[in-house]
């Protein structure tokens, strides 16, 4: 078992090294994308639509990278970036709702209980909040129990690997009030730990086990945290981006 794990980690290191090796030239390509964007544009006009659509994301990316750098310099997060994207910052119809959620949570659980909040416009203006992992347990209880929020129905719980960090995404709905909310809890990749909410919403039980199984996030306080889809003796967490399958043949 231990030997197996050692092999795994070695493989992973190799894989990582290859990856970063790949990344260097890719980055080099992308960094000068700003000035060469126009050049590429003229070329792509001669080409088909496909190339044009390929250009768009890279241009977007460059703009975003610039925005991110600026944001970092100004030491503020997200909000200025969003404003820049949507030039006429039409307030979302869901904004007052989100503000009221955030206000209630901050009043009851402290200022730090909501890291950021924003409206996910692409997702039908879904109110979204980012909660620090160490506050998630108390915020979850608040979301479920506070009469004004009353998020009684857990629609979905999934995990995303963003390579720098892992994220647990929870989609909640209130059958009482008819509003819904997306909660994101970020966690470190190496020491992936998030408080369990299986006691608040029993529906989260298997979903958390699934995320633990496939993404390797430990849900602290879960009644029975063990693999659910993969066999118990499986090595590694398949949905991680750096996952290398353990092959018995080699």
């Amino acid at each position: 078992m231990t030997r197996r794990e050692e092999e795994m980690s070695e493989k992973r290191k190799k894989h990582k090294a290859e990856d970063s090796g790949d990344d260097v030239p890719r980055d080099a390509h992308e960094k000068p994308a700003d000035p060469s964007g126009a050049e590429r544009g003229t070329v792509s006009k001669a080409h088909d639509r496909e190339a044009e659509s390929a250009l768009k994301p890279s241009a977007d990316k460059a703009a975003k990278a610039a925005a991110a750098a600026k944001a970092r310099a100004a030491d503020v997060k997200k909000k200025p970036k969003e404003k820049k994207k949507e030039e006429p910052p039409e307030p979302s119809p869901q904004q007052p709702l989100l503000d009221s959620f955030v206000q209630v949570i901050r009043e009851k659980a402290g200022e730090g209980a909501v890291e950021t909040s924003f409206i996910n416009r692409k997702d039908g203006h879904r109110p979204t909040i980012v909660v620090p992992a160490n506050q998630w347990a108390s915020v979850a209880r608040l979301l479920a129990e506070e009469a004004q929020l009353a998020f009684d129905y857990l629609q979905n719980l999934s995990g995303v690997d963003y390579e720098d960090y892992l994220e647990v995404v929870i989609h909640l709905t209130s059958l009482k009030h008819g509003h819904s909310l997306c909660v994101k809890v970020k966690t470190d990749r190496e020491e992936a730990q998030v408080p369990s909410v299986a006691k608040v919403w029993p529906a989260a039980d298997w979903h958390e086990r699934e995320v633990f199984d496939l993404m390797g996030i430990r849900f602290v306080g879960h009644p029975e945290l063990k693999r659910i889809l993969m066999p118990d003796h499986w090595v590694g967490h398949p949905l991680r981006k750096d996952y290398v399958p353990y092959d018995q043949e080699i």
Partner: protein
Amino acid sequence: MPLRTEEMLLNVGPQHPSTHGVFRLILRIDGEIIQEATPVIGYLHRGTEKLAEDLTYTQIIPYTDRMDYLNAMNNNHAVVLAVEKLMGVTVPERAEYLRVIVDELNRVASHLVWFGTYLMDIGAVSPFLYAFKDREKIVDLFNELCGARLTYNYMRVGGVKWDATAEWIEKVKQLIPYLRSQYDEYMDLVGGNEIFLARVKGVGKYDADTAIKYGLSGPGLRCTGVKRDLRKDDPYSVYDRFTFDVPVSTAGDCQARFFLRMEEILQSLSIVEQAVANIPDGPVMAKIPRVIRPPEGEVFSAVENPRGELGVHLVSKGKDKPWRIHWKRPSFSNLQILPRLLKGENVANLIAILGAVDIVLGDVDA
């Protein structure tokens, strides 16, 4: 002399005819009474979510056929809906109508399979034959439309792959009265059968609070009086144009779930009838780029499957393949309540309760 009793472990499955797939239950029983039930799943796990990260959006669609294999049309719909939401695509009217027609026909077919197999589970074999005979008529229509009986791969981002001919629409129109008359027959044979009704009455009962807490959806939630159906509450496609009821019951037992599903067959037939009567002419595909690259972003969208809500959580980084796609499968979350329902029940009720939860193992394990 006192009678010596002790608890026993009983293994059910994974190869058991009444689990409709590979599902295993470990029961701790005291005589005939179940003390604890531990479901073991994952035998059909194919890693669809991982595979999908290496597939283009069009290539993902056939994989969804194989999740809830009794209900591939709605699965197709869920995934294309999420991509369309992220891209902001408007689907042509005719395609939306075709989607609704096949969704609802598939719902009828799925409920018929449930009806037949559930009755067979609890000891009546002939309803199974009736149900499968009629379901075959729907499946044949699908075969004619898209060339497959079960794994349709019919929908695409921006529309549907194949247009329906006028003859096909005509056949659907003719099928509806036939299925209605068959429905009456089922209700005569089974819905009015004292033995059946007594067998499932009060079995596997739970209340609305429990259902909500366990995140149940579909008939499992509506049988407790919670009126939640995404086709009404969060209408996708063109569902807001049709008049139909969302059947609700307050009994919360297996009998209520039986009647709800049967009633849903009628409602679905009514939607199909309205859709085939009003289907407009026109294209069935929107103009979308050949390579589908949704913008960077994240969406969650859900459709109402026969078994509950099928949600798709999609994270895109602007590439032609998803960064992450997660399916919130209704069978997976509905199955969670099973240990609670079985606790303290008689072993004989196990199959009746499991059958009424209505799981498809492809959907549980993904």
